[in-house]
């Protein structure tokens, strides 16, 4: 019997009830971003359950320790304000854990009562609770606005706001990767180094959320962008923001306030988006693209052409976050696959326009919804099935019920490994996406082929 047995085929319009969301709330995004600062303890200014939930979700996804603290609001704090809790927390955190930075994000609770982080930070500094050389960073992340993507973006913007321009430009380029895996962040750094561009990547969770097992626990692992680097990002020659939803706000702030010009690009998933990324990188830095990059690109094109027959015409349903979905849709269309259903829980009409634009003049009709949910997407699939699902682990219930292969991609992935270590950005990442899709599609073909049609070579 089906697991999601109560999901009817007929779509009933819902105005108030979200079922099986394709998003979560702002603070977890802020926590993930803050983990990409070296020596940073993320702090959740709210009830302790928020922090426990975010830590658990991130830990289940990365299979790594996720340290973060909380203001542990009680009813009293909720009535009188949480400033006393936060002041006490700041003192305790610097005394016991000694991080370089505390990155505080708010919650629906502290936002509803109107706590002002900057005011509390000032008080903490005046009261001598912030040791010399340590940094306090804050981001307002009300859970009732936007989604986890918004929270990520807000914390990244707060990181950019640490910039202290000296007026003397450096040769560095800021790259804001958006909410991608630690492995993706490492791959972006590798590609930039290969092209020969000196970048500051922020946030950078590589080396933080994919750290080795050494027999020694480091509460603050070696990875992460340093405060020194963040302060210097106001002197950079430019900023590349990867993803309108995740990264653009920070880049535009640096542009407006520090005169660091910015370009907002799609996340470099797939051939075309990676091409644009590399092209902009070499243009801003004024360097030729080395052969090694062309070599990697050629390998990706090779595999696309080798296996095109298996991608051609395959119908795909995908859900997740806007920036990822935009690049993935473009990649699928470039393979002649058909992203027929695209859903994000994150609001934004421009997302729908962008997806429709990517799919225009294609031999299929795309159904796209921002502020949608997985219940609706499942109903679409029930009405007209697809060949492949691409999304987070929650899709496994649909995959099993409808007998459709699932490519786990996005957040959270709770039941499979590898995403922390093997990138899906760039040309190499494109190869991995192709490999994973082919494995699923061809395993399915092998399973479903008749005895007569079963083949050794594919």
């Amino acid at each position: 019997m089906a697991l999601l047995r109560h999901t009817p085929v007929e779509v009933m319009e819902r105005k108030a009830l979200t079922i099986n969301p394709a998003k979560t709330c702002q603070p977890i995004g802020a926590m993930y971003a803050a983990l990409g600062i070296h020596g940073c303890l993320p702090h959740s200014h709210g009830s302790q359950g928020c922090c426990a939930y975010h830590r658990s979700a991130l830990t289940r996804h990365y299979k790594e320790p996720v340290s973060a603290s909380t203001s542990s609001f009680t009813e009293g704090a909720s009535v009188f304000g949480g400033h006393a809790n936060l002041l006490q927390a700041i003192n305790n955190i610097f005394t016991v854990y000694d991080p370089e930075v505390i990155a505080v994000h708010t919650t629906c609770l502290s936002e509803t009562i109107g706590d002002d982080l900057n005011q509390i930070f000032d008080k903490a500094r005046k009261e001598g609770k912030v040791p010399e050389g340590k940094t306090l960073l804050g981001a307002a992340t009300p859970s009732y606005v936007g989604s986890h993507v918004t929270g990520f973006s807000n914390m990244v913007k707060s990181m950019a706001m640490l910039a202290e321009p000296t007026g003397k430009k450096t040769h560095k380029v800021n790259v804001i990767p958006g909410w991608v895996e630690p492995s993706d962040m490492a791959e972006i750094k590798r590609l930039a180094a290969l092209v020969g561009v000196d970048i500051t990547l922020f946030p950078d969770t590589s080396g933080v959320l994919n750290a080795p097992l050494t027999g020694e626990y480091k509460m603050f692992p070696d990875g992460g962008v340093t405060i020194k680097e963040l302060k210097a990002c106001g002197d950079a020659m430019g900023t590349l923001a990867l993803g309108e939803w995740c990264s653009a706000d920070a880049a535009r702030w640096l542009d407006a306030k520090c005169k660091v010009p910015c370009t907002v690009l799609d996340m470099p998933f797939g051939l075309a988006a990676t091409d644009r990324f590399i092209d902009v990188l070499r243009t801003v830095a004024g360097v030729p693209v080395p052969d090694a990059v062309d070599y990697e690109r050629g390998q990706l094109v090779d595999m696309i052409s080798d296996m095109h027959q298996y991608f051609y015409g395959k119908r795909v349903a995908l859900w997740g976050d806007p920036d990822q979905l935009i690049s993935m849709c473009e990649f699928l269309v470039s393979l002649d696959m058909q992203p027929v259903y695209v859903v994000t829980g994150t609001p934004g009409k421009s997302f729908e326009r962008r997806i429709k634009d990517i799919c225009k003049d294609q031999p299929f009709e795309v159904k796209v919804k921002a502020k949608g949910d997985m219940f609706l997407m499942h109903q679409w699939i029930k009405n007209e099935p697809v060949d492949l699902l691409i999304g987070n682990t929650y899709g496994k219930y649909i995959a099993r019920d409808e007998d459709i292969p699932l490519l786990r991609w996005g957040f959270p992935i709770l039941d499979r490994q590898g995403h922390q270590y093997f990138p899906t950005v760039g040309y190499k990442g494109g190869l991995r996406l192709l490999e994973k899709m082919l494995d699923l599609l061809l395993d399915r073909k092998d399973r479903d082929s008749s005895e007569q049609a079963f083949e050794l070579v594919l």
Partner: protein
Amino acid sequence: MAKTKKLVQLKPTDIKEELLAKYPPKVARKRAKQIMINEATGSGTAPEIMANVRTIPGIITMRGCTYAGCKGVIMGPTRDIVNITHGPIGCGFYSWLTRRNQTDPGPDGDNYMPYCFSTDMQDQDIIFGGEKKLAAAIQEAYDLLHPKGICVFATCPVGLIGDDIHAVSKKMKEKFGDCNVFAFSCEGYKGVSQSAGHHIANNQVFTHLVGESDKEEEGEFKVNLLGEYNIGGDAFEIDRIFHKCGITCLSTFSGNSSYDQFARAHHADLNLVMCHRSINYVADMMETKYGIPWFKVNFISANSTAKSLRKIGQYFGDPALIDRIEAVIAEEMPAVEAALAEHKPRTEGKTAMLFVGGSRAHHYQDLFGELGMKTLSAGYEFAHRDDYEGRQVIPDLVPDADSRNIEEIEVTADPKLYSPRKTEAEIKALEDSGFEFKDYEGMNTQMDEGSIVIDDLNQYEAEKLVELYKPDIFCAGIKEKYSIQKCGVPMKQLHSYDYGGPYAGFKGAINFYAEIDRLVNSKVWSYTKSPWQKSPELIGTFVWE
């Protein structure tokens, strides 16, 4: 680290001092009262431990919130009730399928557990109030699914903006007529831990569900199992054993539960309390209202399972039942003993630490005991003093600002349904023979003298304990798992069982023995050092030898 055992015997007082050394004075004073060197064994009165108090802001706690305790823990496993989270999307999202409550939807097939329902409150709902959206969401859930029940859970902002979720639920219940709608004021900021949420949930289940069904229930020996959440299928294993013994479990609170099971629970003749922390008050209320006696059981470990079964037999006093129970134990134990014979030689003398929940840190010590392993240190995440020291301290517990805002419901004997299951004389006869009702002696009495009991353990203290004691295994939850393992010490999750189990009953014990043997004897922890780290001296040779 796993390889280099500390040989020096550490004094518990030194350990305690070490744990407190780095804290600011105010924090150290408070934590000192929550860290207790156990003296319970053989020395009469145990020292007091401070528990169920606020977590200190900034100190990285294991605890979650009231919503997590209410919606996540207690109501999470209710398969045929549509649980709607009223709030921004996060709370509903994080409590969606993340606890491993297994369920058997049975012939009716109703199972909403794979679904997440939320009102996904937006800023305009926070500003103008979310009652209309909530009513509309309840209506939509009803129109789509026509469930027997719809429950509504408040998240933090709901309490602040003053949405009257109870009034909305009542109105919708009256409107539908065939769907029980009720709500839980389980805002995350209430109380000091999940425990408050358990209480809020149980109060509402008791008020709105228990006693709803007047249909007489069949079964000679009818019991309810309270405080068993069917993680990894534990309740299935317990049900299997009950079935073999001829014991009818009318209702499990709340693992593998259904609406109708709660509704009929008052027909049972005995309440068995598994997790004392989360539910002992429900047993008390059911005794007062319906006359159902209760006692504490433990189905974690083979011997504890046998002991609990025998006590059930003794309670009913039926020779046939007692014989059947003995026959079942005799039938089940050989497999347990065979498993022990295989694993115990490899686990004997190893050491463990357990920091979890409100009862598991105690129950699982029985399993480690069967494996010949010593518990060096243990504590609960959200328990109260009685769970450490025993129920005799309950009258001394003073309500504070945090516990006072959790509703206590006044219960009196039901004029129609109250009927004492045993006469006073029968109760007295049982008690005279050493039988204890409403019993729980707490965790401390079972622990060795000098072992360290710590309430609301935090990340810093966990790290210190591992560093100082180097236990062979550490048990806690997902948030603690990987920091412990980075130290090279295996970590077993006792919330989720690391996606294994069941560990209850006889078969569960066998599963657990094998799992612990795997963990404490695994070679994977020896891989942390490379050959060149083990012998870093460089001896230069320029030719292959």
